[in-house]
């Protein structure tokens, strides 16, 4: 393509509408587990890339927790060099097909896009997804040359997004990296948590394959704290350093009556059955799941949206999403809330569950609720919901899924006496480096911060990898 034509396109970009990704129609997709958006065609990607102003300072890049060269890769799309664009992303991000799908771009890169000042920002996430899928469909997976071995061994504990990112960076630095995973498959939340229709598992498997091709050794079925302790890894098994990125773990419940009735199961359990164990293919796969005719999901985060949409796809006739505040306060991504609405999830807002009703045989048959109104702002700045007296009512259900967040899992931490944890059980680690109270041991992701996002864990993995590199050079440790 000639230079002059490109210049014209940049001029035009100011007025061009954002190219939205085509999606399965809501009422069709609500009954299948296939991915919701179809992805861009090369033409669509080319057109959308043309909206990018190629800003010199690239404000979008500052919004990316792993510092992807966004103007760089979009520039390559403008030249129709789609494979090169993918390689450009992979210089900084080993999981582009995942991030293109599940990152909250609207709060990160896209929130900084100049195009967003007047209209809609460039669809950076969609473009990232496109180049990654394009590589998978058209190109050979390009494996960077392996550097000379440093002879150092690093154990990365947890193969979720943070662990994968850290493992890649360390392998690229020439260390021998072992990735320990408690479950039977790598990927952490990408495998057990995020549903197929939002992140197809084949895509996660492909990205993990890339990571093992970089030389990362993967050990499944290894519950650190049980099978090996951190001290055994560092002393007996010869690891020079460890990065702990095990996620948060234990699901929270409300502590209301009837919570242990059959038919009440945590979002973690429901999603693990559906995603990791593929219960949506039961009985072809052996793990069962309660399908439910009338399902209530409790909570307003992304996990709640995922649970509600899984319930619908399993065949529930009616799915309620019960949230104690109003839609404006929901922590879920706007796009996910929109998808849930479109698919017919009924939002029951400003409502708090007060208990579950027993059908007399140990199964849940209804959820008791009370209406709430918004009062003064709380410590998070969101208006605090307060119960409205006398507003109690019941919703008939046969499955209830509390999606209320998680708390720290103690299995690993309680076997490392010199690892400092806070009052709530999370590991105390320096923000910039992930350095902990135990020499040689770094930590990051949800087990440090509490529940957060895929990309924030990836950012922590990146920073920890840099810090591990420094540590292996100097073996210097000062933790404040």
């Amino acid at each position, binding site marked *: 393509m000639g230079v002059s034509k490109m210049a014209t396109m940049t001029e035009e970009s100011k007025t061009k509408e954002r190219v939205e990704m085509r999606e399965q129609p809501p009422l069709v997709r609500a009954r299948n587990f296939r991915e919701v958006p179809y992805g861009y065609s090369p033409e669509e990607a080319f057109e959308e890339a043309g909206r990018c102003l190629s800003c010199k300072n690239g404000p979008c890049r500052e919004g990316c927790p792993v510092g992807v060269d966004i103007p760089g890769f979009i520039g390559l799309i403008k030249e129709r060099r789609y494979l090169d664009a993918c390689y450009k992303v992979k210089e900084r991000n080993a999981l582009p097909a995942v991030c293109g799908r599940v990152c909250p771009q609207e709060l990160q890169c896209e929130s900084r896009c100049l195009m967003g000042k007047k209209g809609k920002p460039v669809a950076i996430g969609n473009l990232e997804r496109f180049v990654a899928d394009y590589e998978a469909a058209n190109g050979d997976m390009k494996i960077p040359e392996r550097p000379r071995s440093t002879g150092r061994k690093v154990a990365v504990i947890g193969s979720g997004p943070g662990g994968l990112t850290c493992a890649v960076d360390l392998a690229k630095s020439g260390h021998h990296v072992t990735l320990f995973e408690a479950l*039977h498959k790598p990927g952490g939340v990408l495998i057990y948590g995020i549903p197929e229709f939002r992140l197809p598992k084949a895509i996660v498997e492909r990205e993990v394959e890339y990571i093992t091709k970089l030389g990362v050794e993967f050990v499944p079925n290894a519950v650190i704290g049980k099978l090996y302790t951190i001290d055994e890894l560092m002393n007996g098994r010869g690891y020079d350093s460890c990065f702990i990125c095990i996620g948060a773990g234990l699901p929270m419940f409300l502590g209301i009556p009837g919570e242990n009735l*059959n038919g009440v199961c945590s979002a973690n359990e429901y999603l693990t059955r559906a995603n990791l*164990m593929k219960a949506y293919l039961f009985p072809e796969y052996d793990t069962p799941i309660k399908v439910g005719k009338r399902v209530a999901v409790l909570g307003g985060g992304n996990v709640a949206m995922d649970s509600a949409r899984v319930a619908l796809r399993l065949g529930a006739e009616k799915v309620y999403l019960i949230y104690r505040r109003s839609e404006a306060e929901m922590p879920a991504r706007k796009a996910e809330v929109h998808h849930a609405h479109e698919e017919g999830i009924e939002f029951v807002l400003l409502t708090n569950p007060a208990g579950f009703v027993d059908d007399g045989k140990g199964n849940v048959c209804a959820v008791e609720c009370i209406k709430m109104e918004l009062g003064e702002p709380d410590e998070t700045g969101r208006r605090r919901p307060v119960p409205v007296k006398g507003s109690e009512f019941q919703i008939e259900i046969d499955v209830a899924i509390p999606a209320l967040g998680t708390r720290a*899992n103690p299995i690993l931490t309680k076997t490392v006496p010199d690892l400092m944890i806070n009052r709530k059980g999370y590991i105390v680690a320096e923000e910039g480096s992930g350095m902990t109270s135990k020499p040689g041991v770094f930590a990051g992701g949800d087990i440090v911060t509490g529940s957060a996002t895929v990309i924030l864990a990836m950012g922590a993995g990146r920073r920890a990898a840099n810090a591990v590199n420094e540590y292996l050079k100097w073996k210097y440790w000062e933790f404040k």
Partner: protein
Amino acid sequence: MYKILKKEDLSEQITLFDIEAGDIAQKARAGNFFILRTHEQGERIPLTIADFDRGRGTITTVFQKVGKTTHHLGTFNEGDYITDVIGPLGNHSHIDNFGRVVCVGGGVGIAPVYPIARALKEAGNKVTSIIGARSKSILFWEEKMRRVSDDLIITTDDGSCGTKAVVTVPLEDILSSEKVDLVVAIGPAVMMKFVCRTTATYNVKTIVSLNSIMIDATGMCGGCRVEIGGETKYTCVDGPEFDGHLVDFDLLMKRLQAYIPEEHTAMCGGKMNGGK
């Protein structure tokens, strides 16, 4: 992949495997359990570690063919591989010299009681073991249990071996005639419930090991929740052993039934879920 080094049918429904799992064997202790997944489409189920051999690098498990997965597992032979084996999980038994101890094992629960009885005996306790089953044909490990016990009492529901009684009958005889410091009971939930009811009247501390439904068994799913003294606990991370006098057994039994309709579908090879 984890190789089955030995298979022994202890009865028509009960099978023993020695599984090659060196690192788990190094760490396994009485009271631990593990998770296995037979094949790619398989579910994750918890099984007890009935014994371990650190030198050979094996763990021993004994299971009863009750559902789809255990029936499938029963078709595996020596030399076959199990796709996934994860452990050792759960807290191990608290072993100490308590003094006078009674170990009660019912049905397939005899297997996990064995390493606990052995450890208690080695710790200096006087151990009486009571093992029970419906009938002689499904009773196993009499000799093994005898070797680690000062006394062994056998009961069967039909009287085909030992005393014709349920395990609580000889247990009550012991409790009424001498001071017992600790009772350990593992077996069907209903057996543990009645053992606890019996020991409660004599105010004897009783430890039970619960067999809840689990998926990850590392605290992540919360599927194994039980109520202990009115508080919700996770069998996988807080247990599997609990003070039997605090366990809500009726809730446990209901929760164990949660997937019976689906289990039936799986066994019949039927079709259930919609959206594919």
